[in-house]
């Protein structure tokens, strides 16, 4: 937990926050805090919870360089893509340990509720500190989710919080949190949540002909998007003389309908998915003089039951089971006051079992070995790391593909060219890769066991202006980053002749150039009035340069807008909060060819919320009313997956 650095922008707001004494950030500074060389984009605390977001995926839309694929609704799958490199290149870390999906490599962030999330951070490249698991040096971009950690003031022995959310989609979402101080050194928290929604919402398709006459205008109700899910999370935290430990048990259970594509003559489908995701993870951090050690262990079990009940289609009833064991040890040594070195080793074992005909039941042993070094010369910081990855697969009844090993280096630099540290320049270079997942390699007819890893090279140059003061402008922050990424040997589906038969090949080559712009301004015009404006803009040119003979050669890749951005305006006044957020995703193409038939219109939504904090003795109360898609725009993020029109949510939180 010492590895999350609180951004100053949060603290400026917490002054106005009546709940802040219970919700404040935890920074255990047993030693000099490890600072990221390149700071992350962070949303945390109240600011995070004021954004009208149903899930982690919704909140990530406020980060620059991120595109969220959203299939719509409460239960719809939501995946993220950082800087156009592809979902599989995005690492997702939950309380210090990366979440895995050996089957397809994609984490559905719609499954992660914001209820117990304290901070979300996004790192391009990698978290630029050297004491971290070897695997964390691997992804091309990483999202860190951190849950709330109990902090007790003098004389406090427990905290309790209960929340209920309700609103559109017949949503009923109660949650509860209990934090207990078990002893001077050990505390525990139990967080539980239930979410139930019919997933029904109105959507509308409207077309006009070129003369402006109405061609059709139809409004229908989204069907089979229901969800019933529970989440239980038990955490224990302990401190030792020379370190600390945490242990977590997590269980997520859901039954969902898969709403499917809306196409001509089909308004309802019969697919359903049951998910059970469970894991237990423990962490131990020890400090011994100049030596620091960080150790993680995790066991995960994921069960997915997929059924297609549509009597017009092929009947499917498949059960997939994944298991994962993960052990990591990261160790850092302070050579001198300004020079640190580290080495990490991770071991991971994954297996996938499915009752699918001809399934080869693969299992995989992955070993990661990293070495890193960091120099901190006050005005100039540099960090270099190298990661070696070794993959060994076994499959049932067939010869397994040859072992794979990949070497991926990275260099991160940050400098303060001016006298004060308000202004900084940062540069990074990173190579990363994604291993072909079990589906790519072994999935029935489609998999291709000869696949090689898909590689990404990233170059980034950025400027940051970061200023805080006690004047009217209490905080100001502006950053601009320009980047160039190249995705090589991209794993793409390749046709095999008959209808919809494909295989996977290392065919693609993508050239990505982009600019990320973020800005934040907090002003304090009157005594108790705080105004925060946060803005973010992303430009991306991500073109397919695989083969000049392709008719989509040099076309923008699917679902990547050239322009996208968001703006959030927040006002806080004596317990009242008003939040307005606006998200813009520019025109895109839903297939590789940038032709009129594949054109997808821009969409932009306005969300607004009002909150009020009360205090009744020891009890804190909070009410929140949200209106999402205020202007009721009818849009698809993914073609034929319509998004909800205007919708509402009410949240009441009680905390003692």
């Amino acid at each position, binding site marked *: 937990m010492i590895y999350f650095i609180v951004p100053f922008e949060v603290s400026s707001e917490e002054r106005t926050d009546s709940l802040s004494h219970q919700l404040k950030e935890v920074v255990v500074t047993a030693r000099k805090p490890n600072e990221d060389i390149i700071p992350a984009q962070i949303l945390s605390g109240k600011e995070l919870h004021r954004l009208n977001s149903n899930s982690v995926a919704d909140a990530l839309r406020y980060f620059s360089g991120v595109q969220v694929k959203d299939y719509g609704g409460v239960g719809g799958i939501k995946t993220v893509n950082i800087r156009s490199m592809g979902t599989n290149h995005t690492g997702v870390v939950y309380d210090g340990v990366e979440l895995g999906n050996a089957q397809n490599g994609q984490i559905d962030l719609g499954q992660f509720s914001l209820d117990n999330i304290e901070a979300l951070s996004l790192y391009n490249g990698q978290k630029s500190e050297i004491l971290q698991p070897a695997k964390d040096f691997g992804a091309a971009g990483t999202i860190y989710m951190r849950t709330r950690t109990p902090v007790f003031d003098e004389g406090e022995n427990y905290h309790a919080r209960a929340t209920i959310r309700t609103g559109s989609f017949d949503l009923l979402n109660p949650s509860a949190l209990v934090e207990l101080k078990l002893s001077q050194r050990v505390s525990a928290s139990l967080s539980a949540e239930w979410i139930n929604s019919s997933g029904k919402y109105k959507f509308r398709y409207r077309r006009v002909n070129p003369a402006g006459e109405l*061609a059709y205008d139809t409004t229908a109700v989204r069907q089979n998007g229901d969800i019933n899910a529970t989440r239980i999370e038990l955490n224990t935290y302990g401190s030792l003389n020379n370190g600390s430990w945490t242990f977590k048990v997590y269980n997520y259970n859901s039954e969902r309908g898969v709403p499917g594509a809306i196409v001509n*003559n089909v308004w309802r489908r019969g697919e359903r998915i049951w998910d059970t995701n469970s894991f237990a993870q423990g962490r131990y951090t020890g400090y011994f003089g100049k030596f620091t050690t960080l150790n993680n262990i995790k066991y995960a079990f994921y069960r997915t039951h997929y059924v297609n009940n549509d009597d017009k289609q*092929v009947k499917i009833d498949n059960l997939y089971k994944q298991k994962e064991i993960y052990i990591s040890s990261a160790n850092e040594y302070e050579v001198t006051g300004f020079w640190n070195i580290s080495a990490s080793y991770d071991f991971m074992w994954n297996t996938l079992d499915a009752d699918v005909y001809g399934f080869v039941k693969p299992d995989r042993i992955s070993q990661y070995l990293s070495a890193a070094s960091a120099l901190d010369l006050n005005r100039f910081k540099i960090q270099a790391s190298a990661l070696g990855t070794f993959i060994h697969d076994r499959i049932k009844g067939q010869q397994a593909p040859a072992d794979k090993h990949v070497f991926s280096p990275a260099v991160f630099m940050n400098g303060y060219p001016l006298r004060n540290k308000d202004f900084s320049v940062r540069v990074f270079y990173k190579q990363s890769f994604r291993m072909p997942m079990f589906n790519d390699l072994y999935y029935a007819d489609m998999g291709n066991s000869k696949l090689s890893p898909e590689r990404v090279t990233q170059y980034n140059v950025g400027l940051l202006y970061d200023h805080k003061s006690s004047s009217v402008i209490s905080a100001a922050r502006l950053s601009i980053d320009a980047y160039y990424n190249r995705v090589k040997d991209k794993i793409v589906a390749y*046709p095999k*002749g*008959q209808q919809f038969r494909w295989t996977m090949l290392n065919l693609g080559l993508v050239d990505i150039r982009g600019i990320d712009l973020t800005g934040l301004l907090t002003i304090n015009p009157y005594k108790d009035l705080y105004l925060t404006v946060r803005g973010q*803009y992303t430009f991306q040119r991500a073109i397919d340069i695989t083969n000049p003979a392709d008719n989509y050669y040099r076309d923008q890749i699917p679902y990547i807008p050239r322009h996208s951005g968001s703006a959030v305006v927040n006002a806080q006044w004596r317990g009242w909060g008003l939040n307005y957020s606006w998200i813009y995703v520019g025109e895109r193409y839903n297939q590789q060819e940038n032709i*009129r038939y594949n054109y997808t219109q*821009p969409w932009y939504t306005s969300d607004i919320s009002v909150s009020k904090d009360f205090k009744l003795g020891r009890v804190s109360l909070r009410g929140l009313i949200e209106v999402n898609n205020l202007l009721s725009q009818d849009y698809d993020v993914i073609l*034929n997956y319509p998004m909800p029109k205007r919708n509402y949510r009410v949240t009441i939180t009680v905390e003692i």
Partner: protein
Amino acid sequence: MNLKQFFLYILPLLTVATSCRDDELVVPTEYDIIGDERPGATIRGFYIVNEGNMGSNKCTLDFYDYYTGLYSRNFYAEKNPNVIKELGDVGNDIGIYGSKLYIVVNCSHKVEVLDARTGIRLGQVDIPNCRYVRFHRGKAYVSSYVGPVLIDPNAPKGAVYEVDTLSLAVTRKVSVGYQPEEMEIIDDYMYVANSGGYRVPDYDNTVSVIQMVDFKQVQQIPVGINLHRLKKDRYNKLWITSRGDYQYRPSRLYVMQKKPGYNQMVVTDTIPVACSNMAFYEDKMYYYATEWNNYTASNTITYGVIDVRTKEIISDNFIKDGTDKDITIPYGIAVHPETGDIFVTDAKNYVSSGTLYCFTPDGRKKWSVRTGDIPAHITFLTK
């Protein structure tokens, strides 16, 4: 410029620079000038249905007009702007009977019926998971993966639906084998190729025989696994393809005919070539085959010609000018009934525009044109 100015001016500017949403327009038709004109010819033109990838709702209809030399791409929506969500998801077959054009839209579970000359919609017939359409004595017959009676809900048999071409109502249904594909009608008997594609690895291997008078299945003749194409030549012989199991058992071509003096079709020949699709012209059968090779990780594609009288392969590549190198995935084939021009479609990667190639009978490329996604099925319109 200080930061306040940035927020005051630059952000709103960015907002203006980025474009806004307009009304969603009905997808417009695009025209290409081909110039292969045959004014006054009996064959007025041809329709081509582009399947579109599953879930994309991009089944589209193109038309080539020999009278004007114009290729119209994706003209359904413009002709029929009031149809919600356009033509539909995954076209699978097309046919003309009388004055009507029938398009089988597989994942929209319907047969779309248009006026063959104007392209204006006349109606639709809802048939679940429909595959192919054939015509006989005022009726349209549509094969469907979903049978009328679900005896075993886990393995429903397929069916053939009979549709009245005047009222567009389903008049009769008959249960056949598993996942039926193409059909032909010879002497008041219908022959249906059953694939069993939903039952991997227990594929169906039979041709169903349906007596048309009482619309009953009278026989199932074993032929080969995973049957797909079933077409008759000018001598009423049936040419049937098996897709194989894509692994150990290769695609094959079978011939069925009646023994002299008998009314029963029997398998007479197994031709040891892979065959994905074929088209007949006089005594020639043009075919292509796409077979995936796991070792070279590439498709092996052949374009052959068979003499239907001798059943001999008379050419192993009807494309003579090297254009076959440009074709990624051949996906449809047709021969112009008058000129003998050969049409081959290229489905490329299934998720981008395909190409339609026109070859002269001696195998030289005459012209090519961009189509919709997965161009596949062609039918000729007579004047």
